[in-house]
């Protein structure tokens, strides 16, 4: 399977030489090995490490979604925490107030987030990137404020406890939720990969590169932009519902503006417009705060500095940088035809 899709940023240096356009290929066996390793985490690691890994998997799902709208279609979203919040709260509310089991509740959460994505996508059709940023920013803030102030339903700032999900009469353990999340994560990556390689993905890239050119080639930009937002929001909704189940507790603090910014940062630090970039970014930036924990009051300061260093030294992200290094060091490897893709 090919882990890197061909979606470099418009002015990236890699587009200059033709051979570096070839994606890095990873064979299916090593990917399977990776999946097995991830699924083995709950059996090998302690509960703390397991929870951090769960968060990383959830963040990968969100950033993969952000990458579809932002990396491929060029629609900036600084309110993605809003979609995640909708997924989390719809799932929790349905499980609390109705007798729905976790699976249909999650499905409703995903659909609700998707609908929100369409609603937010509609005004964004007419707007330039800055104003799309504004609309998504406003959306994220609005969701957060509603969660904070609609105390009778959402519990306000105190949040809500999530009922324990049951699976055929048995309580789903943390391990079960972890495995489910891992499956969802690999599934999302597979979906995102296929989108990026399909007619839809190529249309997204065309819109990102030049809206006017795309339109004149017959790409229905209004439809596709809305689709990009909806798909990206549904990824957020999925991640949100998994977060609710995994943490057992939701409160508005988990979905503030800074979290939305963090999702975007993960994508940019890893490399926008590649499949592997957001994965790498999500893993690094989920683990980094945990590693900085011993520094207590300087933690935020250090993570800010590290982030700034990341952005200034690798403005196009880690993955595109590695790709271009690899093709420079090993031109033969990069020129080999990719093995059969999934």
């Amino acid at each position, binding site marked *: 399977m090919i882990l890197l899709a061909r979606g470099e940023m418009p002015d990236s240096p890699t587009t200059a030489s033709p051979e570096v356009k070839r994606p890095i290929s990873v064979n299916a066996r090593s990917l399977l090995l990776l999946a097995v390793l991830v699924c083995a985490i709950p059996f090998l690691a302690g509960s703390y490490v397991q929870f951090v890994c769960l968060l990383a998997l959830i963040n990968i799902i969100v950033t993969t979604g952000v990458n579809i709208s932002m990396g491929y279609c060029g629609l900036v979203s600084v309110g993605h925490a809003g979609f995640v919040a909708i997924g989390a709260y719809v799932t929790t509310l349905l499980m609390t107030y109705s007798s729905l089991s976790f699976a249909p509740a999650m499905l409703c959460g995903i659909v609700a987030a998707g609908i929100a994505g369409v609603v937010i996508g509609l005004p964004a059709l007419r707007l330039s990137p800055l*104003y799309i940023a504004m609309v998504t920013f406003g959306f994220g803030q*609005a969701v957060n404020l509603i969660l904070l*102030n609609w105390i009778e339903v959402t519990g306000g700032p105190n949040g809500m406890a999530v009922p324990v999900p049951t699976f055929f009469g048995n309580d789903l353990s943390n391990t079960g939720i972890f495995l489910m999340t891992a499956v969802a994560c690999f599934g999302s990556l597979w979906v995102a990969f296929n989108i990026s390689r399909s007619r839809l993905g190529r249309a997204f890239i065309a819109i990102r590169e030049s809206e006017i050119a795309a339109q004149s080639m017959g790409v229905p930009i209004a439809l596709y932009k809305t689709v990009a937002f909806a798909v990206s929001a549904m990824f957020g909704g999925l991640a949100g519902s998994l977060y609710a189940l995994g943490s057992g507790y939701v409160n508005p603090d988990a979905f503030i503006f800074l979290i939305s910014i963090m999702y975007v940062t993960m994508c940019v630090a890893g490399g926008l417009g590649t499949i592997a970039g957001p994965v790498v970014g999500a893993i690094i930036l989920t683990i980094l705060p945990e590693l900085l924990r011993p520094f207590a009051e300087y933690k935020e300061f250090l993570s800010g500095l590290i982030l700034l260093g990341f952005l200034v030294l690798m403005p196009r992200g880690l993955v595109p940088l590695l790709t271009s290094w690899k093709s420079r060091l090993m031109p033969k490897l990069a020129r080999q035809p990719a093995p059969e893709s999934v």
Partner: protein
Amino acid sequence: MLGQLVVSSLALGSIYALTALGFAIIYRASDVVNFAQGEMMMLGAMAALLLYRDLHLSYPVAFGCAVLISMAVAIVVERVAFRPLLHAPHFTVLLSTVAIAQVIRSGVRAFYGQELSSFPPAWSDAPIEVYGVRFTLLGVGIIATTALTLIIFLVLFARTNMGWAMRATAQNMRGAAIVGVSVPRVYSQTWAIAGGLAAVGGILLAPLIIITPDMGVIGNKGFIAAILGGFNSLGGAVMGGFILALMENLIGVYISSAFKDVIIFGCLIVVLLARPTGLWGTQKLKRV
């Protein structure tokens, strides 16, 4: 009642207007939304607090020094977080301003602690009533200082070589460079002025709220105001500040204060649907 609301919105509105103007001039000159503007406000307020309350300098001196400190920091911010990224993708530059905001905020917190302080007002905040409309000397002082700042800004912008260079760069960076404008210097000046405007806003705001290293969130209001008025129109951004403050007060009084911000975002989306570039903004034409 309505007159009262308008009068009491003016003071808050002028603070939003200053911040919005800072956002707008950076955006016009360098096509970047500087999300560290709120932190520049906080920095101004913090510096003024230290100089005025702890070092017992007189108010105008403390005010001036705090503004100068913020301008110096803004120049450093431009050098560190913007200049190296001149040719980088847009999102990266945007995020680097967010990162530098986090560095400033947490740096100040590490240095100063999470202490809550209040700024002793330089003018009396006892209410005065004229023709049934109440206001305070503090409010008048805020409005007057803002007016003075805006006049100084206008003179700099419209009457000096620096202003000419700034406007030329905003219009066409390459063209300006060709006719001999030092574009890097214009960037420094623009960011310094924006930092100064934010600092003035922050210092004026200081007596009205509790000062913490997190007070920079108010900078978001400047961002919203600039969007409302039109990001590429300086006058629009200033007007946006006043309109936003008025809307906040009206909605807070007549509809609901808890859902005030939600309703304002709703209104904003409606405004943007009708006028995608804000009330006074103009559409940039794109060539294919």
